[in-house]
């Protein structure tokens, strides 16, 4: 389910995220796995009735797989992440294991938000969040955009917003 196959005529409008977002994802995964393995190690040390030789084993496995994931997953995820902004809709493709494609008509957008987390500010990136009245799937986050690009995208979407009488 490639976005390019569905919109062969809009190939030049299909964007990828900024490459720095891979570093952010990798660092976040790394820190997460280190924290989880520390907690596991402490729990094992205090409460698990096993021989002292095996105490570090679950923590080590978690740490190793977390670090491996931090190296491999971000680039795979980055490869899949594409988005396309047309005159009347936004199309987003993402996901490694469960691959998803989402269409959001611009007429349904309720409001737009730009958020910049601490990580993103370090790399001068921003996240564009597009809210619809839908409940779960139809809200869209586009992470890892250059700040100026995110602002111009927001202005473009805002200029395309029209009053819809669905709600």
């Amino acid at each position, binding site marked *: 389910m490639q976005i390019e196959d569905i919109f062969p005529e809009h190939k030049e409008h299909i964007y990828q995220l900024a490459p720095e977002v891979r570093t952010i994802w990798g660092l976040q995964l790394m820190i997460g796995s280190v924290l989880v393995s520390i907690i596991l190690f402490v729990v094992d040390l205090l409460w698990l009735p096993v021989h002292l030789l095996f105490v570090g084993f679950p923590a080590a496995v978690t740490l190793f797989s977390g670090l491996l994931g931090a190296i491999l997953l971000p680039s795979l995820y980055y490869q899949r992440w594409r988005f396309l902004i047309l005159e*009347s809709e936004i199309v987003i493709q993402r996901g490694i294991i469960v691959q998803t494609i989402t269409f959001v008509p611009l007429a349904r957008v309720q409001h737009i938000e730009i958020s910049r987390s601490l990580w993103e500010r370090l790399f001068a990136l921003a996240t564009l969040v597009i809210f619809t009245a*839908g409940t779960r799937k139809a809200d869209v986050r586009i992470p890892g955009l250059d700040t100026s690009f995110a602002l111009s995208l927001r202005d473009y979407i805002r200029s395309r917003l029209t009053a819809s009488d669905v709600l």
Partner: protein
Amino acid sequence: MMEDQAHRLHPLTILYRALKAAPQYLPIFFLIAYQRTQELSWLVIAETLIGAAVTIPYFLLWYLLFSYRFTTEGIIIQWGIVQRQERMVPYDRIQNVNIQRDLLHRLLGLAKIEIETAGAQTTEVSLNAISVAEAQQIQQLLLERKGQEHLPHSSIPHHPLSPRRAIPSYAVPNSHILLLGLVRFLPVTLFLIALIFQFLPDSLRDFILHTVTASINRALHNPLDFPVFPTASLLIGTVLLNQLLSAILTTLLLGNFRIEVHPTQLITTSGILTRRTYTIPRHKLQHFTITTNIVLERFQLASLGGATASQPQQGTAQYPLLPLSTYDVIAEFLYRHFSIALPSTFQPVHPRHWLRLAFYRTTILSAIGGFLLLFSPAGWILLFFIPFAAYRSYLHYRHFGYALSDNVLFLRSGILRRRLTIIPLAKLQGYGGTADPLQRWWHLRTLWVETAAGMRSLNSIADLPIPTFQSLLHHIRRSVTQQTASATTDNPTDGNS
């Protein structure tokens, strides 16, 4: 009704409010009574009298200080004992005017009038309570003034209490509502049964408990000697009691059901004790569902519900539009008032759908069951369910179907409780597709859609072959883009909702 003349509510309002508030004081009363049982009972009486001496003047004062009047621009209400407040609602901001009468209202010959406006989530002005004749007069007056101010809305909505013009309306006979209650499962009733069980005579309760524990003990000691008769009778008794309670509750809630189809809104009135009137603006309806079950289907009976972005107060997800009517009535209703033609045939999804479902369910069951087996042999029970889970997946595949007309998507699903979800494509907030590894291997895709009303995962067509998936997606996309384009060109300034 004179201009600029302050009106008071009906004098019986004092009694109404006092009676309405009484249940709140009962726990305190019981608490005091319980503490004082060892001592003199006249203390209880004295405390009650003091309580009444404080609260009754409050209601009297509240009544005396509440006033409303009609000016040329709008309705003004003033209220408050310590903090005086005043609110003015212009006539042209009034969306609808509801009259509600609960049991106490009807005993006292009163009515409550609610004025709803566009901006606020809650009712902006409610006059509780005035006499019925006055309520009708006010409703008439407000709607006429609103009509003068706001000519584009040519159709002035009115209430069942004051019929003036021929409006298409449907009534559902109470026998149908009773039948609906008898066949549907309400979880609340289990709680009620537990409550009733508490108040049974001790001997009867002990007898039932003893029978149950004795039969469980016997079954545990000797599985072959399973007490079929007590178990069956207990089950049947619970089911019968449950259905009886559910019939009573449903009839109280939905009895004397009536729906009127106005040009811009639907007005439903229902309830035996408390009459509830819902006014649902037509364009706020997101999707419809027709629910039925394996029994009702044989009699061609089903219920039609409409979902909006907000939820009705009863805690259900949908507004009942036609509770339990024949298919013909429902189809005619949808066709005549919403130009939705129900499809005669449904397309099945790919047969591997059930295989995929069965695979995932088997994986989950064996993972949990295997984990449990580490600790106790009870894990075998979960493994025992695997063939049933597979068969259920197959049945799910057999009963699932979809149909797509020009601008409506129909999804049919459910094994015992069957449901047809009707999603107008103009109401979609977003749509798309997903593919998990198994689906990628088999070249299948899932299509999902979403409206502003929550849809509880009944919103996807799983396991379509890729060409079908792509054609459906293109159809939906074309329809949505066309409709949003036409909606924005037709009425660009209609933000009045």
